[in-house]
């Protein structure tokens, strides 16, 4: 996946918001978990509640270590006979090692990444495009569920999920059909008059950022705990899971920092930039920052002192030595389609 295609990052962002963006995300890893102990294993492994999940449900979750730090974020799909877990590319091996280290002999863990291709089809026209090119209709699927569909003779698992804040889906299919499916989506869009373009990493980042979704290594990482990253909602404290006790202890002690959205005036905030309070005292640092094309703002996500997290709190972001005016803003900057 390139940083951007010849279309350009900003235009790619806008195309995804107005029609359809195609994301070649085969770098994502897929792990299948089966066996008689799979349900109990997955429930203890991931932070979110999964005991109520029946096919065809899919759910966002975190993977935590014993200290409540975030090893990865995952999408968990309940398949009829197994669990299908989508992991970040850079964590594929460490996640697999972690899964295996915590599983018993009644669990089978299979890395499906190499024989599975993954493409995200995102945007307000994405469902229409899919319905024209594959059967049965995915418009019948609810958000955060999946279905088996067929594009010509290619079997596809379609998850009505995504990472852009738009409607659409993420598709999984045999890796040797990658070129066929990619071209069918692109050419299909063109011949149907549905604007459809390939989207690069830069636009993927700005789309997810505006929609308030975390990127591993930025808003979440093995140096950030789930609570300070504001992921209490993705942790089911009514069950046992790895990291639960640590998070309870952290909650009792109180957080030392919290994730906030920050709008910056007069410059582009970037990862690593320092933040001070209005008086100039150290307050935290940016973990991601950019120009946000849909909301037309320069904004950052930052970890700051807990006394500075209220919306409207004035801050300074240090850009090349110059303190620039900034203010804590409500996240997300762009309300995702599934919440509208």
């Amino acid at each position, binding site marked *: 996946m390139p940083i951007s295609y010849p279309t350009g990052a*900003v235009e790619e962002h806008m195309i995804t918001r107005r029609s359809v963006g195609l994301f070649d995300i085969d770098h994502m890893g897929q792990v299948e978990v089966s066996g008689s102990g799979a349900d109990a294993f997955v429930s203890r492994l991931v932070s979110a509640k999964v005991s109520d999940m029946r096919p065809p449900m899919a759910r966002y979750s975190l993977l935590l270590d014993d200290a409540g730090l975030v090893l990865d974020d995952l999408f968990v799909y309940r398949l009829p006979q197994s669990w299908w877990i989508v992991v970040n590319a850079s964590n594929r091996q460490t996640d697999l090692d972690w899964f295996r280290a915590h599983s018993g002999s009644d669990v089978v863990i299979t890395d499906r990444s190499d024989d599975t291709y993954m493409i995200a089809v995102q945007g307000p026209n994405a469902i229409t495009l899919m319905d024209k090119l594959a059967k049965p209709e995915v418009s019948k699927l609810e958000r955060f569920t999946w279905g088996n569909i067929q594009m010509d003779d290619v079997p596809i698992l379609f998850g009505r999920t995504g990472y852009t804040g738009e409607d659409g889906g993420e598709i999984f299919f045999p890796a040797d059909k990658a070129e066929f499916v990619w071209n069918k989506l692109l050419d299909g869009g063109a011949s149907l008059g549905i604007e459809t373009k390939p989207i690069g990493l830069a636009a993927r980042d700005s789309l997810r950022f505006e929609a308030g979704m975390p990127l591993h290594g930025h808003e979440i990482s093995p140096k950030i705990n789930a609570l300070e990253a504001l992921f209490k909602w993705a942790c089911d404290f009514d069950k046992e899971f790895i990291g639960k006790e640590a998070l309870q202890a952290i909650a009792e002690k109180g957080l030392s920092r919290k994730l906030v959205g920050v709008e910056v005036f007069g*410059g*582009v905030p970037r990862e690593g930039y320092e933040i001070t309070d209005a008086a100039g005292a150290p307050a935290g640092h940016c973990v991601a920052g*950019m120009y946000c094309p849909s909301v037309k703002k*320069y904004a950052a996500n930052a970890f700051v002192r807990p006394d500075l997290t209220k919306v409207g709190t004035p801050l300074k972001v240090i850009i*090349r030595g110059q303190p620039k005016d900034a203010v804590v803003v409500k996240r997300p900057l762009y309300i995702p389609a599934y919440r509208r």
Partner: protein
Amino acid sequence: MSIDVRARYAESHEYARQEGDIVVVGISDHAQAELGDIVFVELPQVGKIIGKGQTFGTVESVKAASDLYMPVSGKVVEINANLQTDPALVNKEPYGGGWMLKIQPSDTKEMGQLLDAKSYGKTIGEE
């Protein structure tokens, strides 16, 4: 990539175009294409005197910030205020609406030290 034949160029890809007593400064079409989508341009105060080769501002693309260097020494007499609201003008019309500074040059000989359009074209691999 287009090269404005009326302008002269620094090796760091800024152009300087003489218009009467004034020199118009911006970045070349090649430079904007290399940077990608430009989302922010920081320019100096009007009245500031800046030497050749010194930083006069910053251009931020989607992924990185890059310093801008004065192609010739001079006093800033006007900055392009439109870039504050529409920095993408630098991408769209680098030699036109995407200009950055108008300066009063302090040493007219410096223009001659810059690359002419043909030599600049060679440095970026275009004949």
